[in-house]
């Protein structure tokens, strides 16, 4: 015989409290208000040929037919200050938005959607950010990574609810082997309401031990960048974020068109 739902919910709540030290988001985030959505935090790069974003129209996907939507991209500078927004109206299931150039080297943004009739589904915007290195390149795609940023497009763009939380210290080791001929650029984004520090450690296979690299202090909704060369092995990121997952670009001086981007 199944336990009544109330007991199930109580057990779930107790489990969340017991293991809250491992939760990347608020332990009890609360329900979204009608029209609110949760977005990942995406990266914009101002030093490449073009940036695009692939935005999903979830209500249309559920309905199986075109539904009018306004996609809004809300931008933040490296210190987390609002940089304005870009809106596109569409009824397509997916819309690829070419991002207008911003007056910064890099920035972050979130995706929000507005429908004539607010959806009751609690939607999560995890889209795809696309990076074109030169005008002769295809766009390199990477899907949304982490965020927990709640937006309501009917309200001021400056009012967001941030669900990401810091906890005790974590180590996060991307499972990617770096090589000495690579130029590695890390973009560390911070969706927490607090300023966070991320230390970069370098581990060489076969040797053991580690070498300390730079420490980045990232404001809320902001982003910091560091470039590393001559790596031979793995990077480990030490922070108070259970999910600290930089976006990484790998280029090579010996091969001008090498442009690998992935979220860790």
């Amino acid at each position, binding site marked *: 015989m199944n336990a009544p739902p109330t007991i199930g919910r109580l057990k779930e709540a107790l489990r969340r409290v017991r293991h809250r030290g491992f939760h990347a988001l608020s332990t009890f985030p609360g329900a979204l208000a009608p029209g609110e959505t949760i977005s990942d935090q995406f990266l914009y790069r101002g030093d490449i040929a073009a940036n695009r974003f692939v935005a999903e129209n979830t209500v249309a996907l559920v309905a*199986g037919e075109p539904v009018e939507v306004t996609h809004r991209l809300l931008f933040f500078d490296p210190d987390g200050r609002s940089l304005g927004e870009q809106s596109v109206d569409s009824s397509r299931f*997916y819309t690829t938005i070419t991002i207008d150039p911003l007056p910064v080297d890099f920035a972050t943004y979130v995706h929000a959607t507005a429908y004539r009739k607010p959806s009751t589904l*609690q939607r999560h915007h995890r889209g795809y950010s696309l990076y074109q290195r030169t005008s002769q390149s295809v766009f390199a795609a990477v899907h949304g990574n982490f965020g927990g940023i709640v937006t309501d497009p009917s309200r001021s763009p400056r009012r967001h609810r941030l669900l990401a939380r810091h906890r005790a210290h974590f180590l996060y*080791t*991307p499972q990617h082997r770096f090589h000495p001929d690579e130029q590695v650029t890390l973009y560390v984004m911070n969706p927490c309401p607090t300023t966070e520090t991320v230390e970069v450690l370098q581990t060489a296979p076969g040797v053991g031990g*580690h070498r300390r690299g730079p420490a980045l202090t990232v404001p809320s909704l902001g982003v910091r960048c560091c470039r590393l060369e001559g790596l031979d092995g793995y990077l480990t990121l030490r922070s108070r974020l259970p999910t600290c997952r930089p976006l990484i670009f790998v280029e090579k001086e010996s091969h001008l068109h090498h442009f690998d981007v992935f979220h860790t």
Partner: protein
Amino acid sequence: MTCYYPLLGLPHGIDASVTFSTFSHNERTAAVRPPRSHSLDVALYRAERGRWRCLDRLPVPEPGDLTLTSAGLDLAPGELVVLVPLERDRREDPGDGLLPLPCSKRVDRSPVAERASLGFRWRGVTSSYQGEYPVRMAQIDQGTMLSFDALFQSGPTVGRNLLCLVNLCRQPEEVEHRLELFDAHAHRLMRTATYRRNSCCLVDVPPEEAATKEVFVRSTTSLGIPILLTLSREDLPPSMSVEHTHPPTEFFSERDRLSGSRAIKRTWLGMALS
């Protein structure tokens, strides 16, 4: 969540690779130290004539990693070899005929799922992502798959889009599945592809097609992970993109994850196509 790691045979001169390390990926610790390292082997399996065959078992140098390539194993397009991490002294064959369960590098409840680096090399450039094939998906022998065309590219620099659907199941019996590509607006079937269980289904989608249609992909009999590759034109400098698409569950927050993804699947999996 423990995982397998697929090594794919691909066309058009693309060499796939898997790099698996001994390092734990995510752990909670106050110390400033390297990540924990594990003593592990990697066993390579391929499904042949309805049975799993172990091709090799290799120790992973500790602390360090192991890289395997599809060219090194001479994989033909569509072929799939599965990397199964195992504890150093563990027997790999449990005797039940199923693909052995992998071991885990997890040391605590840290949230990030286990991964390896899946790389794709073409004309001297490499694109990679942190990937895996979850055991819970491989445990299911009958399922459904729905994916959308968000990552098909068009435009003057694009040479080709390649959809690679990875289907992995612990059961080795040969079963044939069918993949449908359809125009989402016109509800018109564009083409179908058949593929075997424990293989990768490869479909080229020309950029002209991606420019004019919203192309969705479905299977009503199997699960799978779709990987989208985009290659530049052969007469341009090489560039490429590799990414896997979000499953429908990712469109919803925790509360509506199951109900929302079921609603999407109900809409598109049951849709009649002309």
